[in-house]
């Protein structure tokens, strides 16, 4: 059995599940229900298999690799190589896919009769296949195919709800950005090929000595732009808040939770595994980018009142946090501090896993909220906790996890990231130390702001009174959805409580990558689940959780039953200063965020616009209505993307004038070309 799994067949089986799901749902497209269930079931089954496969690979010390003997195209070789890193990412993909597809079975119902469900199933499964191949391909061109499959399938998922022009526009932006990013990636591969003479990752790695330093740096920049575009680092993030909301929620969960991580995967694969040794400034650059993405990401999230856009911006923030880990790993490995590099890489990978879990959880619960309220605008929710208690609970868990509250998983990866940054501050001198200090500061502020953002989100969505008719009539969503979300919520608690073993498992992954893999890691996990960084710092999730629970119950029991148990608790209206309280008096998400927006107005460039309408224009004493409109200026479009596209179109207008419709000038071109060439070639 084990041998069977460790042979490439195991991987083929994995793929074939999803391919079967794709084709099946396409075949049964006539029957919505069948197609949906088919694709969902196959996807879940496949991901269960994927979990088994990858976890065995992670625990064992094997690596599966396979190559097709020959193809009709030279340079291309259909080959994949699944080492620990790939296995880890396959694990993440399968984990999230399992719950998302489970959720999808229930969620897709509301598309019945409106769209072709078979196509949805097809692209959903293809999307997963693409991701699986991306993290396992071992040849540049084959990788490129997988990458394109992933991008295009996800594009079709984004524009699936195609009657909404907004989605179409979002899809356009998404595919364009992806394609441009891909061009940068291709060029970096080209440069590698130019010097190493092969697209096979292994060969490239072997011949890395042939690549001159300058070329390496160029490759770094190109790859950073290319993969950063997919990962959504600022300023290449503009597609992300547009595309993720557009897709169906279980897909946005996958995109935001997993797909953008493929960019991270490739960064690790190339910078840490293929291109070695590396100069230290790469790490510094990535640290800076990470800090910027984290801070700005969370700030933009605070300004959002579209729930899915908010979550999308949080993905940018978390990518930033992951990059902090990755960047410090690069810096350490270039300064030949493998022990520390190990910690940072572990932190990055662990946060990748955690973010995948809680972000997909949040997207799924957001999806079910949207599904019931038919709007993405937070301002029109309110009080949903009474109508959809479970969804509220799961969202709460997600919020606590993403804003790094112990004992949920988010905290521990952020803790580890902090620790690696601290180590950097201690053990590295010169300007690099300052980047580490700044990154730590950015991370600290990010944590606080994320807390604020999710207090705002949860409060505005679930607490107080409904602010719209839709919200008044919301109902709890169906079991499929609840199971999908609930298990993710449990997972994020689980990975928090047992962060010890998880960390030590991930440590092996990073151990297999960092150059001197003999390096002993500072991070150690002992019997009672205490994670300790040498003797610098230590903590234990279970103990904390235990103490907390004990204290909580103790306090509760004491207060409830020991002191004055005859207490009467009566229910009354909220104090309303005499005027009766309407939903319009509640705090909205915009007003909640207003103060922070104004504090950071230097960065966010908010546009405040007040408008007062009076009962009669003569006497301006009785205002009929006051409107305050806060909007954030999209500086990236206004100052970069807009001018660029304008320039291109202006150029095209210029060039169009070649085709001026006059035949004489056409002949003149020919004659001119003839004479010119004749004079040039003599």
């Amino acid at each position, binding site marked *: 059995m084990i041998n069977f799994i460790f042979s490439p067949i195991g991987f083929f089986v994995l793929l074939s599940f999803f391919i079967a799901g794709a084709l099946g749902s396409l075949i049964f497209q006539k029957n919505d229900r069948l197609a949906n269930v088919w694709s969902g079931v196959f996807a879940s089954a496949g991901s269960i298999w994927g979990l088994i496969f990858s976890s065995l690979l992670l625990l064992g010390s094997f690596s599966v690799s396979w190559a097709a003997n020959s193809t009709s195209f030279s340079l291309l070789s259909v080959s994949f190589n699944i080492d620990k890193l790939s296995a880890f990412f396959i694990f993440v993909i399968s984990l999230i896919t399992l719950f998302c597809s489970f959720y999808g079975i229930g969620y897709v119902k509301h598309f019945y009769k409106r769209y072709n469900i078979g196509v949805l199933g097809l692209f959903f499964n293809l999307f997963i296949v693409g991701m699986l191949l991306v993290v396992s391909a071992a040849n540049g061109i084959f990788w490129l195919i997988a990458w394109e499959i992933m991008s295009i399938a996800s594009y079709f998922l984004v524009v699936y709800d195609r009657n909404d022009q907004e989605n179409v526009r979002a899809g356009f932006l998404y595919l364009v950005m992806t394609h441009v990013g891909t061009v940068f990636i291709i060029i970096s591969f080209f440069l590698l090929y130019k010097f190493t003479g092969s697209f096979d990752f292994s060969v490239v790695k072997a011949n890395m000595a042939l690549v001159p330093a300058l070329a390496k740096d160029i490759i770094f920049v190109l790859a950073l732009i290319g993969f950063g575009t997919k990962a959504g680092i600022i300023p290449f993030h503009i597609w992300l808040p547009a595309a993720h909301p557009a897709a169906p929620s279980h897909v946005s969960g996958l995109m935001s939770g997993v797909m953008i991580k493929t960019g991270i995967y490739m960064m690790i694969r190339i910078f840490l595994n293929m291109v070695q040794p590396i100069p230290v400034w790469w790490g510094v650059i990535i640290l800076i980018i990470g800090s910027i993405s984290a801070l700005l990401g969370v700030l933009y999230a605070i300004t959002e009142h579209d729930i899915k856009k908010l979550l999308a911006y949080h993905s940018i923030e978390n990518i930033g946090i992951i990059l902090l880990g990755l960047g410090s790993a690069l810096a350490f490995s270039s300064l030949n501090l493998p022990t520390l590099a190990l910690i940072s890489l572990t932190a990055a990978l662990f946060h990748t896993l955690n973010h995948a879990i809680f972000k997909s959880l949040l997207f799924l619960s957001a999806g079910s909220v949207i599904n019931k309220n038919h709007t993405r605008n937070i301002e029109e929710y309110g009080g949903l906790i009474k109508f959809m208690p479970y969804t509220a609970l799961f969202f709460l868990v997600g919020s606590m996890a993403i804003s790094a*509250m112990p004992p949920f998983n988010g*905290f521990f990866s952020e803790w580890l990231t902090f620790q690696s940054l601290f180590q950097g501050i201690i053990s590295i001198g010169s300007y690099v130390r300052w980047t580490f200090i700044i990154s730590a500061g950015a991370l600290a502020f990010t944590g606080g702001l994320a807390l604020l953002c999710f207090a705002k989100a949860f409060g505005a969505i679930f607490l107080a009174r409904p602010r719209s008719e839709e919200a008044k009539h919301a109902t709890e969503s169906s079991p499929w959805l609840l199971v999908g979300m609930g298990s993710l919520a449990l997972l994020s608690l689980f990975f928090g409580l047992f962060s010890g073993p998880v960390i030590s498992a991930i440590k092996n992954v990073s151990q297999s990558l960092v150059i001197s893999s003999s390096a002993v890691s500072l991070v150690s996990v002992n019997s009672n689940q205490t994670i*300790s960084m040498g003797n610098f710092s230590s903590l234990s999730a279970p103990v904390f959780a235990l103490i907390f629970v004990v204290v909580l119950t103790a*306090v509760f029991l004491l*207060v409830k039953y020991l002191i*004055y148990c005859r*207490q009467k608790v009566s229910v009354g209206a909220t104090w309303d200063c005499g005027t009766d309280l309407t939903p319009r008096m509640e705090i909205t998400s915009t007003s909640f965020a207003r*103060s922070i927006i104004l504090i950071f107005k230097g960065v966010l460039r908010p546009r405040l616009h007040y408008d007062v309408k009076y009962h009669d224009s003569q006497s301006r004493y009785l205002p009929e209505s006051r409107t305050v409109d806060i909007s954030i200026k999209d500086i990236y479009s206004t100052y970069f993307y807009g001018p660029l596209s304008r320039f291109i179109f202006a150029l095209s207008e210029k060039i169009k004038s070649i085709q001026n419709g006059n035949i004489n000038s056409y002949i003149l071109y020919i004659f001119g070309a003839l004479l010119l060439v004749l004079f040039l070639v003599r």
Partner: protein
Amino acid sequence: MIIWLLQIILIPALSPLGIGFVKKIKAKMQNRQGASLIQPYRDLWKLFHKDEIISSDASWVFRAAPFIVFSVTIVVGSSIPLFGSFLDNYFTSDMLLVVYSLAIGTFFLALAGMDTGGAFGGFGSSREMTVSALAEGGLIFSLLTLAFHSGSTNLFKISSQVIAAYDFSFLPVILAFLGFFIVLLAENGRFPFDNSATHLELTMIHEAMIIEYSGKRLALMEWAAANKLLIFGALAVNLFFSAGIARSAGLTAIFWGVIALLIKVAVVFFAIAVLESVIAKFRFFRLPDILFISFILNIAAIALLL
């Protein structure tokens, strides 16, 4: 075991006293007699024996919040050095863990404020979250300075370090202390951030969030606030000026440790009281400047230290 019990109950036991002390000092400075030191205990007792009204809009978050907030302060209080640095707690007394656990309390406080759907609660939560979000950087970095100095982020380890005037790291520690002090004021809603003594809706932050509470839950909230103040006071004195803290298990040592804690905290609280009497509350939009100042102070401290 006994020691741990002491460690756990010390904070809730002493915190009302601290509040009373501050109030007393302020009263004195306003040439008033002021309530007695133990008035806060009486208030809690009174509140615990009142019936309570809960808003019809409130959900379980509102009902559960006081317990969570209070328990957080207990857990944190039990995992920071109070009277003895010899108890080495490897499990929960990591500085980041402490900071983020406090965040749990803030989070639920804010949610509770929003839950009743009143106008005040929402604004209170908004302001509270804004302040604490900006304070977080300063908090972590001021503790970080000490962590670098003592080579550990474990609070007990930190408190076991002696920092004396002749120590090269004296200046940075002082800077870090100033930063921490600002954060202390911010996190506990003291002047110039918040006026804990008023219910003027334009200015109040903490009171606005708990305005819907009554009876036991109000008592818990108030108590939790008191605990938090004491926790920060204890951190301030034990981490930055660990002189007098018990370095070994032993009845006398512990006794003197407690005494030292009381005295040092009294000094800090006295400072708070004086500050509250002499300066006015700032405009809300000037607060971020102060908080950034604390962050900068800490950065400077770290720069000096390393």
